[in-house]
């Protein structure tokens, strides 16, 4: 028997083997274990390419061993070697290794060499937490705040565990406030809800909002909601979340209490919640979102629960129904269906008994992300962060396969998989049109092939009339998007672009960053869920206009065809048979008026937004008037498309704001409404009709409105501009092609 070679000799032999055979990964791995410095020297001298014959898994092992050795014994690898390791192989490093190496470089807080290495590694692994963390810390140290925010958001998204999201939140507090619009969020709870704050912060920042959170002291929700002198009142929230746990309201749930007793106590508890909600609504104009009730405890009767009478599950459902019913009677109050959110959580348990005892947490760390997302579904529409139109690719997005290659009968779409995933997605998209979201197509295809599927494939849930506009051609998708924006009279920030192709998405993000282009999962079975989770597609109200919006755009397409066939603009407008019905706002139309003020960007004279509560107050005051205009023509109903808020004084009527949906730009509806305001002001013996104008980045179409209607600008106005028209002689006139009608006794 021969002796095994001594370690030194073995190392020399392996080193020799690596030198000669070069790209033999197993030898390199052996050398890494025997002599890391020599292995690092060999590997890093070869730059980014590494041993050609090494598989990614082998290379990852080599790099991990090197990182381990480098982090374990400082000085083993030179600074230059560490930077090279990060630059070329950083994307292969585990989170811990990447972080340890980056923090071990020792170049101080601002280290241009390390910065460069991290940037290079992040190009290849944009979501690697181990790289994002040191990169974010460096961006903070160097004062590159925009990059810091971006890296922190990516870090929290790629590793949404509580510790990381809390770290991200803590780091952001070292940064100055962003220029994004502020949103003030109050959290009122009967338990420790603090860990939700970092997640809410993350969700708001992803929407380009600057959140400010007020966390009411532990279990003070009832006192705070009374208002008088409460810190909550001083905070003036835009939205308040009331999260009271059933297990706090009904301590009996933990014990042997019968379902009947739970129900009796529960009804009282719901009344308590509703009373607090009603008080809150009486003094605050904030949106109030009440979390539904759920309990951590099973019915102690087990299988027999519900056999002889209602079990606890039934009772909890009834209590939640009662809560929902009560909240419906309050203005601006919503129920967040917490039991549903928890049931649909993406992982983990709802309740963590240890944390319940240790920290009085009643939501486990696993569900915080889901709950925060559910909360932000209320915040996005409140802050006007919603999108109006989903633009869809066709092949492998609305159906499986490529119609140009597989043929209209070869594509995968139907009731069985593969194919049922796409049908389910289409059905969801169809439901979006029921609440006012438009759909459009942007696809590289032969138009005839694609239309054949859309018109005649028996499994299509979406048809031609589901789409407000279509671009099926061989143009690049950003150009098509621009032309869709033009046809639909929508800004680019009204669009969501859905495409299965990484390349098309990257191109759209780069060319038109205003368009929201969400990451799509590879598996089409997850398409539906991906869109369901987008806060930008949520709504707080659904009006009649929303339900018929798609139809209105289709009618518009037909009007366009008439326009092409008639000669002059006046002749065309005359042939439309436009009727404008003017009215004062009513309870029925207030939600739509609020929505118009909130969502209209182009024909918006001042850009002022109003909260629903503020408008409700104005509607009842004698010195304020809110006008509405409903428009129809021979092709169909446009709905309530224009509104004006007017401050009435004996001497003058001042138009605080006047907005009109872009759907009817070019019909002269705004002039008809102005004529009506002038006529009413004259009748009230006011001398002046005054209008304010504030230029915004988007309201160029409204720029000349007052000038065109013979208003004169006040000489010493500033911002806002003030324009006035003397009503002593005459008032603005309505276009001859519009028939004006009055409703509700005005």
């Amino acid at each position, binding site marked *: 028997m021969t002796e095994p070679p001594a370690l030194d000799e073995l190392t020399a032999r392996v080193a020799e083997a690596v030198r000669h055979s070069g790209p033999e990964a197993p030898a390199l791995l052996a050398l890494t274990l025997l002599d890391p410095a020599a292995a690092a020297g060999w590997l890093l001298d070869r730059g980014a390419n590494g041993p050609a014959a090494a598989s990614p898994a082998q290379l990852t092992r080599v790099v991990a061993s090197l990182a381990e050795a480098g982090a*374990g014994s400082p000085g083993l690898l030179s600074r230059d070697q560490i930077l090279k390791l990060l630059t070329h192989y950083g994307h292969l490093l585990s989170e*811990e290794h990447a*972080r*340890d190496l980056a*923090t*071990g470089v020792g170049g101080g807080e601002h280290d241009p060499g390390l910065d460069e290495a991290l940037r290079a590694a992040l190009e290849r692994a944009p979501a690697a937490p181990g790289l994002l963390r040191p990169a974010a*810390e460096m961006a903070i140290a160097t004062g590159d705040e925009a990059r810091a925010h971006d890296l922190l958001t990516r870090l929290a998204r790629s590793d949404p*565990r*509580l*510790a*990381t999201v*809390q*770290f991200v939140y*803590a*780091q952001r507090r070292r940064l100055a406030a962003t220029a994004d619009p502020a949103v003030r969020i109050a959290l009122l709870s009967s338990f*420790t809800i*603090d*860990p939700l704050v970092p997640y809410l912060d993350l969700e708001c920042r992803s929407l380009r909002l600057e959140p400010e959170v007020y966390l009411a002291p532990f279990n003070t929700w009832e006192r705070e909601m009374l208002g008088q002198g409460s810190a909550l009142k001083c905070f003036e929230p835009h939205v308040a979340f009331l999260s009271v746990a059933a297990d706090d309201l009904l301590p009996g749930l933990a014990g042997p209490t019968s379902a009947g007793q739970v129900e009796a106590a529960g009804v009282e508890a719901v009344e308590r919640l509703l009373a607090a909600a009603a008080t809150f609504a009486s003094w605050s104009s904030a949106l109030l979102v009440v979390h539904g009730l759920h309990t951590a405890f099973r019915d102690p009767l087990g299988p027999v629960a519900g056999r002889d009478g209602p079990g606890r599950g039934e009772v909890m459902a009834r209590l939640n129904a009662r809560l929902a019913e009560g909240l419906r009677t309050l203005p601006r109050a919503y129920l967040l269906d917490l039991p549903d959110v928890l049931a649909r959580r993406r992982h983990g348990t709802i309740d963590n008994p*240890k*944390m319940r*005892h*240790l*920290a009085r*947490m009643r939501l486990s*760390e696993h569900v915080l992300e889901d709950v925060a997302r559910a909360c932000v579904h209320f915040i996005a529409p409140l802050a006007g962060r919603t999108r109006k139109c989903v633009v869809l690719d066709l092949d492998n997005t609305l159906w499986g396969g490529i119609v140009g290659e597989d043929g209209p009968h070869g594509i995968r779409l139907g009731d069985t998989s593969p194919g049922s995933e796409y049908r389910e997605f289409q059905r969801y998209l169809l439901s979006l049109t029921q609440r006012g979201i438009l759909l459009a197509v942007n696809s590289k295809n032969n138009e005839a092939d694609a239309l054949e599927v859309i018109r005649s494939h028996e499994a299509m849930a979406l048809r031609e009339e589901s789409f407000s506009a279509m671009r099926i051609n061989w143009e690049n998708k950003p150009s098509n998007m621009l032309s869709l924006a033009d046809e639909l009279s929508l800004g680019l920030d009204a669009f969501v672009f859905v495409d299965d192709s990484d390349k098309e998405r990257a191109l759209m993000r780069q060319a038109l960053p205003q368009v929201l282009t969400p990451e799509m999962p590879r598996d089409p079975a997850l398409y539906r869920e991906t869109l369901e989770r987008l806060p930008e597609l949520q709504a707080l109200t659904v009006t009649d206009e929303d339900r018929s919006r798609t139809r209105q755009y289709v009618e518009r397409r037909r009007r366009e065809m008439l326009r092409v066939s008639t000669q002059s603009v006046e002749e065309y407008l005359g042939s439309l048979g436009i009727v404008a019905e003017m009215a004062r706002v009513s309870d029925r139309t207030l939600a739509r008026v609020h929505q118009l003020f909130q969502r209209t960007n182009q024909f918006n004279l001042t850009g002022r937004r109003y909260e629903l509560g503020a408008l409700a107050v104005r509607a009842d005051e004698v010195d304020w008037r809110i006008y509405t205009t409903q428009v129809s023509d021979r092709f169909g109903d446009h709905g309530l498309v224009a509104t004006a808020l007017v401050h009435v004084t004996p001497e003058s009527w001042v138009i605080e704001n006047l907005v009109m949906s872009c759907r009817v730009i070019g019909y002269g509806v705004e002039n008809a409404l102005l004529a009506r305001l002038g006529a009413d002001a004259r009748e009230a013996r006011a001398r002046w009709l005054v209008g304010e104008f504030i230029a915004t980045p988007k309201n160029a179409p409204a720029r000349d409105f007052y000038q065109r209607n013979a208003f004169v600008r006040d000489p010493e106005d500033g911002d806002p501009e003030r324009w006035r028209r003397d009503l002593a002689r005459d008032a603005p006139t309505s276009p001859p092609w519009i028939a004006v009608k009055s409703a509700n006794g005005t």
Partner: protein
Amino acid sequence: MAPESVVARVFGLPRASVSDATSNTTVIAWDSLNHVTLVLELEAAYGVSFSADETLIMTDVGAIKRVLRTHGVVWDGA
């Protein structure tokens, strides 16, 4: 992963600055809420479950290591 790494990660500290003496009195961010986060992270990292008494005494890295050892946890450099 060494306990020092977990502590560094949770509180956003450089790994090299964490020693057995690092405690809830030396780290400002180590408040009662972040202590909960730390406990959750340690449990997830080592697949163990601490008792309430243990979580109360784990207020410095040395104590954390002692508790981990009683659970039979081994890490590099231990």
